[in-house]
């Protein structure tokens, strides 16, 4: 076996088999309830890691409260103020009751996105590779359905039938209503779908692009000659995409929560 072959075997044993391999669900602890498979998978593991990170961080941030906050405390305060301002700007003072929900939603999505960007430990078993829970549409759709369900239930609970007035915007002439109402209903019902697909597609696309670039590096490096030298170009590409992914991880969590806030505003004040 020549040197090139050894290098190839090393690289492709080391890196994933393809750009989509990273999204495979691996069972860690098999567990089933009757016919339903409820195993503890790598998706569950990384969601748990996200929740534990949030718990650890906010425990640490609020442990020794000082008037002049230290490093961790001021980070915690920044996170709190960021969401508090978002809730106040979109929903006003009555929106405070939704603050815990919005804060939890943001923290969970942001940490899921961010922790998924960590590199896997080389040589670790496949089940323990880094995994982004939000790159699976079922996760994002469940989250979107949660906020959509909250809007519907809270709106109906608080305003009763009056909540349906969100489908009839004020100031629209009566003869236009047969056209406007179906459009409003369709746009209302497509909210969870667009929320879910936006987050899922961003995470999926980002991670696929990272691995495609990694594949370029591997292929070029083993091609020999000038091509091996050129392999530095996609390597810098990975760095650039990685930085962009940090922005996207934050931005998508932000967009998801702010859209949730805007939708919850409808439930609070349906007469717009």
């Amino acid at each position, binding site marked *: 076996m020549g040197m090139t072959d050894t290098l190839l075997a090393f690289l492709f044993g080391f890196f994933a088999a393809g750009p989509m391999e990273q999204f495979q669900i691996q069972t860690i602890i098999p567990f089933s309830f009757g016919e339903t498979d409820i195993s503890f998978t790598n998706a569950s593991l990384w969601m748990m890691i996200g929740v534990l990170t949030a718990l650890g961080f906010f425990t640490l941030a609020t442990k020794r409260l000082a008037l002049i906050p230290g490093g961790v405390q001021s980070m915690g305060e920044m996170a709190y103020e960021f969401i508090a301002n978002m809730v106040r700007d979109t929903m006003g003072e009555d929106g405070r009751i939704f603050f815990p929900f919005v804060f939890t939603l943001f923290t969970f999505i942001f940490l899921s996105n961010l922790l998924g960007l960590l590199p896997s430990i080389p040589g670790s078993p496949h089940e323990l590779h880094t995994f982004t829970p939000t790159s699976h549409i079922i996760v994002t759709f469940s989250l979107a359905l949660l906020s959509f369900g909250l809007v519907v239930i809270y709106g109906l609970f608080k305003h009763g039938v009056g909540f349906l007035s969100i489908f009839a915007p004020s100031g629209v002439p009566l003869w236009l209503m047969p056209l406007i109402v179906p459009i409003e209903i369709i746009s209302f019902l497509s909210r969870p779908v667009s929320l879910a*697909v936006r987050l899922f597609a961003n995470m999926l696309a980002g991670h696929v692009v990272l691995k495609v670039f990694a594949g370029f590096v591997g292929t070029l490096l083993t091609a020999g000659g000038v091509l091996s030298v050129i392999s530095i170009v996609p390597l810098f590409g990975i760095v650039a995409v990685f930085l962009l992914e940090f922005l996207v991880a934050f931005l998508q969590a932000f967009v998801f929560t*702010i859209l949730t806030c805007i939708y919850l505003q409808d439930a609070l004040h349906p007469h717009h």
Partner: protein
Amino acid sequence: MDAEAAKYIGAGLAVLPLFGVGIGLGILFGNFMQGAFRNPSATAGLTGNFFIAFALTEATGLFALVIAFLILFS
């Protein structure tokens, strides 16, 4: 035509919406910059809305990308 070849052509065609997304992002960035440079004191108020609009526009391109992936890998 070979079914495999048609698949790759289809995946290529599915990402054509990126054309529009590119134009959209260009307009968005351009107008944001224009607003920010004309009135620098208003920049802070514009940034939040700008990022929402950026994410919404970018999402359109990603929807196309998802379709392309579905064609390629399923």
